[in-house]
């Protein structure tokens, strides 16, 4: 079963203000971006129709029936190679063409047609889905007294709809009322953000009474709200109803594509339809990425274009010279009638003739441009992706998730990764939190060691061991199935607190308060298992679930949440048994990454007003009251200790409120909430700030995020492969360092360079003026970087490894324009870099900096919404489809279930794909150059008149029939070494980093090889079979026989060449390679048996002339062997005497067998 996916960020707002009174009117909306007006229950009124909002039908297709042909053709002909062939095809209808137009157009039609069919098929699937969605049924109020069924596509803005349980919402709705009296409903937003947990929505109190058909009869309201936008988690608007104005919040908005759960039915007003809905606004194509190889391939195509122009113009110049000579006395070629010449051969207008000849040559040598290269690569990459998706060893059984290549463009880029930028939480760790320690009233509780502590303790063991020798480690736990504990998310052991022993502690009242806060201050939903009575919790973040679980385990069982209350089974030490207590929930001040805290305000049964707050230690300590600092020093000490142990900490505090103070604040707060403008959030935060002060510290919690299985080993392997690893995390410096140790990024033998602004003298600086502080901080960072840099450069090469640790504040300065190069130099010299306390934006910035400055391939890996920027910025984004939501996966290029699969993805699939694509492209150019240059040599002997050596159809079938499949087999199946060896010798990865398979020398070498082959094939074939009688019957060999013989040699040579550079022969390769050669003969027989008016020079050429002639067969054998000889000699000498790393590995493998 799929694991539960949640997100840590984007905590959704829940039950934010359960007030009954209508709030004071806000500023009423309007203005730019807030102009939408919805006439509820009156979509037909003139004002509404005037607004002309789009219907609810959606179309996600790229094409329509009408525009498919022009639009997809346009897409196709944006490729320069296709345009070239189109022009060639058009010109080939003129007498300029060296061969028949149809044989030029056929390959183009095949290639473009295949791509278009693929497009059409994909679009058809989208269309079918659209039709299904548009025709779903929904119940709409008819304006009189009944609901009737209609299709989704017929919905209009302002309609009132009724949505039943487990149905999808047809559009973005304003939630009016539900089958529950208190006007709540639960929705599942899996399609929006991948979260499977239920979210609670709450309608306005004034509309909860609209329960039945009759009540809608008189319902009329006017909604003013924001214009359609893509923000899923915000909504700003007001509703004018019964003369009063009510503010609207995301709480009241039900988004299209989410699902109604645990609620019988709801009524809602359609606000946004069709493409205006938030989910549709969100649907955007991710930025398209192209791989290095593909970019270089474009360059090569340009090189080939210039080669084409070059040889065409060479030919034209010679043609011009020769043609001019035609009319001279000694050289009068009467048999071509220069006196009656057409414009194309006119000796008196040589310049024009040469120009036309140039066009002819462009067509003739068009086969130098590999027309089928793009589609072949596309096919190959799709198949490679299928292999990645199918790989059993990247399949996570616990979560039932295979690896997923979401784009197929970047397969080969995987083999070239130089730097990995990794998120920590959820990526290296499981992101399933376990409550392990706490500090209450200055006393630390919880025994047991965290992983980081264990790793540090074992540190000496790693230090002595070799870099290449991964320790046999039993640590690392399955992320989803934590079976060793009876309670998930709870790993707390302390006899002083367990089993109600806490009442015997001296500060039992503080302990009670502590756990009560944990049980109340959250946004989790209890799920009661009816049969067993067990309660589990659906929480926004795993931390929160761990807290609520911990509270439950220690006797504060949260069992019910309503709109206005939270109920606990609580152990009362005074009575000595469990009692049920209900807390009236007044406000929730939500968590956000800027606030770094959340609070709830409750009223106890004793009518006491309390504010409970939990948050980051720094935030909480700033807001402590004078009398609330009793435990501050000790708690701080504990928090430091916990974070050193790699644990995540939160401080817990509370505050008593007086009724007057609360009332005053509450009004202010409501006002802020109901304002309708862009900075409402800021105003709300500011207001919340006013009550979250003078807190009394109770204690701190520490939860542990376990490392994922296999992470240290994987990192070790990646390091051996020479990949630089950066960890970008939001954690504290100490936590980050400890996690570094735990996953063996850091070792004791490494020299750590720490750049931070958290030093006492910096703190002292902070008292000054703003500008001065900035400057001073900048200076300080610059100085630290410079010092470190000199330190590194002194020791570079001698003692080796450095690790750079930098915190977010410093990073902000280090990334400034003046320092970024210096910083990067330093970072590049260090084996590992840890950036802690980084914001999502900084992550993306760091990624961009690394990518831009090193010019090497970067890979970012992350799992949360906060990593999205980083994933999109990097050359390759890898999303972990793990515990957090789907947002990272949605914006990634590859998705894997666990970090450890990265090893296989990069070292095995990356290596293979890189090698395959590189070899395939090189080979493609080789085969086309071989083919094209033969034409040139022939033309040089045919008066440069543009006469092709082969029959028309041989030429057009070359790329699509006789050489296409083997090259695909090379691109899909070839491997130099098996996966086992790839993993055993990670240094093989460096082949890709240094790009040795696709370096310019190699590419040019292949091209040279092509030229060599063409020379050998042309001259040897002509020398062997021309002039003398071709067979026993004395017939001579003409153009037809020479063409067929040479073509045979070409087909054999290029296919055998492919076989020579393959490292891996399966039956598929055999079928494709030998099949292609065999097919050439078949083709020749079939084509040769067409009437001579169609087959022209190929008529019976094989059966009658070639096949019975020993000369033909003997010369084929000889020419093919000698054409292959240069490459074979080169590669054997190179392998034997100057072996490359992979050559050595290959022979190792051979000997080990």
């Amino acid at each position, binding site marked *: 079963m799929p694991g539960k996916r949640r997100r840590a960020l984007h905590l959704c707002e829940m039950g934010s203000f359960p007030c009954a009174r209508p709030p004071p009117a806000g500023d009423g909306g309007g203005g730019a971006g807030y102009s939408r007006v919805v006439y509820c229950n009156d979509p037909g009124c003139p004002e509404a129709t005037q607004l002309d909002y789009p219907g609810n039908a959606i179309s996600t297709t790229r094409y329509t029936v009408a525009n498919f042909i022009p639009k997809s053709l346009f897409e196709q002909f944006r490729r320069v190679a296709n345009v070239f062939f189109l022009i060639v095809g058009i010109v080939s209808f003129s007498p300029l063409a060296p061969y028949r137009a149809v044989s030029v157009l056929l390959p183009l039609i095949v290639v473009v047609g295949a791509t278009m069919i693929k497009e059409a098929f994909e679009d058809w699937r989208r269309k079918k889905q659209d039709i299904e969605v548009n025709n779903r049924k929904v119940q709409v109020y008819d304006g009189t007294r009944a609901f009737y069924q209609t299709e989704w596509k017929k919905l209009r803005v302002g309609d009132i709809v009724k949505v039943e349980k487990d149905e999808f919402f047809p559009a973005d709705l304003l939630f009016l009322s539900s089958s529950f009296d208190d006007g709540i409903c639960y929705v599942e937003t899996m399609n929006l953000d991948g979260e499977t947990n239920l979210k609670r929505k709450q309608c306005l109190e004034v509309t909860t009474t609209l329960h039945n058909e009759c009540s809608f009869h008189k319902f009329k309201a006017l909604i003013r709200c924001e214009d359609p936008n893509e923000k899923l988690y915000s909504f700003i608007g007001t509703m004018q109803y019964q003369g009063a104005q009510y503010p609207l919040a995301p709480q009241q908005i039900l988004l299209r594509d989410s699902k109604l759960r645990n609620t019988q039915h709801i009524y809602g007003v359609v606000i946004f339809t069709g493409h205006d809905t938030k989910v549709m606004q969100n649907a955007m194509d991710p930025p398209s990425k192209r791989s290095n190889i593909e970019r270089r391939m474009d360059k090569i195509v340009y090189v080939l274009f210039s080669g084409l122009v070059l040889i065409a113009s060479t030919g034209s110049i010679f043609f011009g010279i020769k043609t001019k000579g035609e009319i001279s*006395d000694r050289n*009068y*070629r*009467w*048999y*071509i*009638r220069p006196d*009656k*010449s*057409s414009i194309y051969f006119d000796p008196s207008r040589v310049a024009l003739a040469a120009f036309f000849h140039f066009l002819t040559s462009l067509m003739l040598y068009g086969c130098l441009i590999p027309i089928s290269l793009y589609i072949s690569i596309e096919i190959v990459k799709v198949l490679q992706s299928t*292999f990645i998706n199918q790989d*059993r*060893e990247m*399949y996570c059984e616990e979560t039932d998730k295979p690896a997923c290549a979401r784009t197929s463009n970047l397969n080969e880029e995987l083999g070239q990764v130089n730097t990995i930028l990794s998120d920590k939480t959820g990526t290296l760790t499981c992101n399933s939190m376990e409550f392990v320690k706490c500090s209450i009233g200055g006393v630390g509780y919880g025994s047991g060691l965290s992983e980081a502590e264990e790793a540090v303790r074992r540190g000496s063991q790693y230090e002595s061991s070799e870099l*290449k020798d991964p320790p046999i480690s039993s640590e690392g736990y399955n992320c989803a199935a934590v079976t060793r504990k009876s309670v998930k998310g709870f790993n707390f052991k302390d006899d002083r607190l367990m089993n109600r022993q806490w009442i015997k502690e001296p500060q039992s009242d503080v302990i009670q308060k502590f756990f009560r806060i944990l049980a109340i201050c959250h946004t989790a939903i209890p799920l009661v298992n009816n049969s067993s009575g067990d309660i589990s919790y659906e929480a926004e973040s795993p931390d929160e679930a761990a807290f609520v679980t911990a509270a439950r385990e220690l006797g504060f069982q949260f069992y019910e949440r309503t709109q206005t209350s939270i109920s606990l089974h609580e152990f009362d030490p005074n009575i000595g048994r469990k009692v049920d207590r209900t807390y009236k929930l007044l406000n929730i001040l939500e968590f956000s990454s800027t606030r770094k805290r959340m609070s709830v305000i409750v009223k106890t049964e004793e009518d006491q007003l309390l504010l409970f707050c939990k948050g980051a230690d720094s935030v909480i300590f700033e807001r402590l009251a004078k009398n609330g600092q009793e435990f501050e020093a000790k708690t701080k000490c504990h928090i430091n200790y916990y974070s050193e142990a790699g644990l995540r900490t939160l401080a817990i505090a509370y505050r008593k409120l007086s009724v007057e103070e609360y009332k005053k604040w509450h009004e202010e707060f409501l006002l802020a909430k109901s304002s309708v403008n862009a900075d409402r959030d800021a105003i709300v935060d500011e207001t919340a700030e006013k009550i979250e002060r003078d807190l009394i510290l109770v204690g701190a919690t520490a939860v542990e995020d376990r490392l994922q299985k*296999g992470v240290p080993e994987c990192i070790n392997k990646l390091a051996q492969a020479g990949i630089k690893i950066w960890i970008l995390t939001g954690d504290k410096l100490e936590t980050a360092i400890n996690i570094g140790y735990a996953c063996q990024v850091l070792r004791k033998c490494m020299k750590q360079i720490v750049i931070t602004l958290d030093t006492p003298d910096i703190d002292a600086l902070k008292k000054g003026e703003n500008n001065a502080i900035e400057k001073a901080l900048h200076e300080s960072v610059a100085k630290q970087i410079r010092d470190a840099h000199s330190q590194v450069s002194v020791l570079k090469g001698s003692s080796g490894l450095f690790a750079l640790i930098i915190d977010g504040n410093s990073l902000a300065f280090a990334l400034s324009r003046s320092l970024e190069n210096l910083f990067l130099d330093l970072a590049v010299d260090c084996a590992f870099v840890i950036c802690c306390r980084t914001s999502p934006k900084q992550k993306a910035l760091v990624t961009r900096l690394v990518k831009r400055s090193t010019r090497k391939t970067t890979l970012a890996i992350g799992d949360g919404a906060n990593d999205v920027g980083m994933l999109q910025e990097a050359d390759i984004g890898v999303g972990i489809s793990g515990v957090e939501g789907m947002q990272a996966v949605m914006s990634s290029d590859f998705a894997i279930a666990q970090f450890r699969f990265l*090893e*296989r993805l990069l070292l095995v699939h990356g290596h*293979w794909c890189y090698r395959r694509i590189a070899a395939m492209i090189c080979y493609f150019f080789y085969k086309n150059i071989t083919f094209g240059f033969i034409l040139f040599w022939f033309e040089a002997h*045919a*008066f440069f*008149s543009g*006469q092709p*050596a082969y029959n028309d159809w041989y030429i057009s079938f070359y790329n699509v029939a006789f050489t296409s499949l083997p090259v695909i087999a090379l691109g899909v*199946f070839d491997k130099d070494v098996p*996966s*086992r060896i790839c*993993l055993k*010798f990670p*240094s093989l990865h460096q082949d890709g980093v240094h790009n*040795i398979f696709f370096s310019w020398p190699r590419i040019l070498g292949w091209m040279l090889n092509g030229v060599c082959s063409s020379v050998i094939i042309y001259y040897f074939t*002509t020398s062997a079979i*021309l*002039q*003398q*009688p*071709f067979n*026993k019957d*004395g017939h*001579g060999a*003409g153009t037809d*026989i020479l063409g067929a013989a040479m073509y045979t040699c070409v087909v054999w040579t290029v296919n055998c060449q492919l076989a020579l550079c393959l490292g891996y022969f*399966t039956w598929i390769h055999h079928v494709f390679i030998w099949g292609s050669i065999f097919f050439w003969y078949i083709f020749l027989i079939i084509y040769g048996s067409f009437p*001579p008016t169609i087959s022209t020079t190929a*008529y*019976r050429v094989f059966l*009658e*002339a070639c096949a019975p002639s020993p*000369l033909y067969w003997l010369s084929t054998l*000889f020419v093919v*062997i000698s054409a292959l*000889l240069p490459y074979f*000699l080169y590669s*054997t000498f190179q392998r*034997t005497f100057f*072996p490359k790393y992979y050559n*050595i590995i290959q*022979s*190792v493998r051979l000997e*080990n067998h």
Partner: protein
Amino acid sequence: MEMEGGSSSGSAGGTQTHHRFSPMRSRAFYRFTQQNLPACKPVLTPGWVIMTFLIMGIVFVPVGLVCLHASESVVEIVDRYDVECIPEAYRSNKVAYIKDSSISKNCNRTIKVQKHMKAPIYIYYELDNYYQNHRRFVKSRNDKQLLYGLKYKDTSSCKPEESSNGLPIVPCGLIAWSLFNDSYAFVRDRGEMNVNRKNIAWKSDREHKFGKHVYPFNFQNGTLIGGGKLDPSIPLSDQEDLIVWMRTAALPTFRKLYGIIEEDIDADEIITVHLVNNYNTYSFGGKKKIVLTTSNWLGGKNGFLGMAYIAIGTSFVLISVLFALIHVKYPRPRGDPTYLSWNRKSNAS
């Protein structure tokens, strides 16, 4: 140094688990998706390389010898006559001579046969610097007209020889128009030898490319006469010299079959060739030769293939020896991955 075990992900083999994942799929398909198909993985070890070269050499040299022998056993006589057949007086202006139809073009050549020539003896004419592969030339024909005659009207591809005096030409086009028209007759002591001019074209050409009921029409009637004329009473399919001529040559130097002598010629016999030197190669300086040759299973005389086989075969043997020597002298310890680490390796670009 050996590293053991790979990583956790590497060693968790798929074989134990696959049946759970896809019970319906066959093992072969599973191996396919896991890229684990049975395969042979050729690695070019020095031993292999040496053996390959040696074996190829051993195969190639005998093949070459056989080819060379076959080529050598063919008797071939080549006689260039384009200059000799012009009277001394016209040597300075050959073009004028050849164009002047009033002068007799008869010419006699004597050929001494060195070796016994066994029938059939093939007669070729060889032209040089003659671009039958010029695109303008090659395209100037009409296959449909050749097959269907006057019934087929669209002869635009034959330009500039598609019609004359307002009437279509059959066969049209430059190729037919420039038909080679020197003629040879061979006389030996015993008398004139019989030259068979049938069966000199490919059978498929005779039967399928040239119509049996298509007769030459309006041919060589224009102001400018190109090459030979055709007998309008003989269908195209029987005009074998035309058929041979129209199967265009690949290179500017080419031989075309003229006829077959179906009697043996003994060694040291002297043959007189009565030839009519009609064809104009003088305006562009092309040579004309007459070739008499026998043939065998490998065709005619061409030492290239045999020599090439022998040369390549010998070099294979040499390479393998060289390889072996280098390998013995500088044995490279292979199989040791620590021998070269990436860092120590000379950095590839």
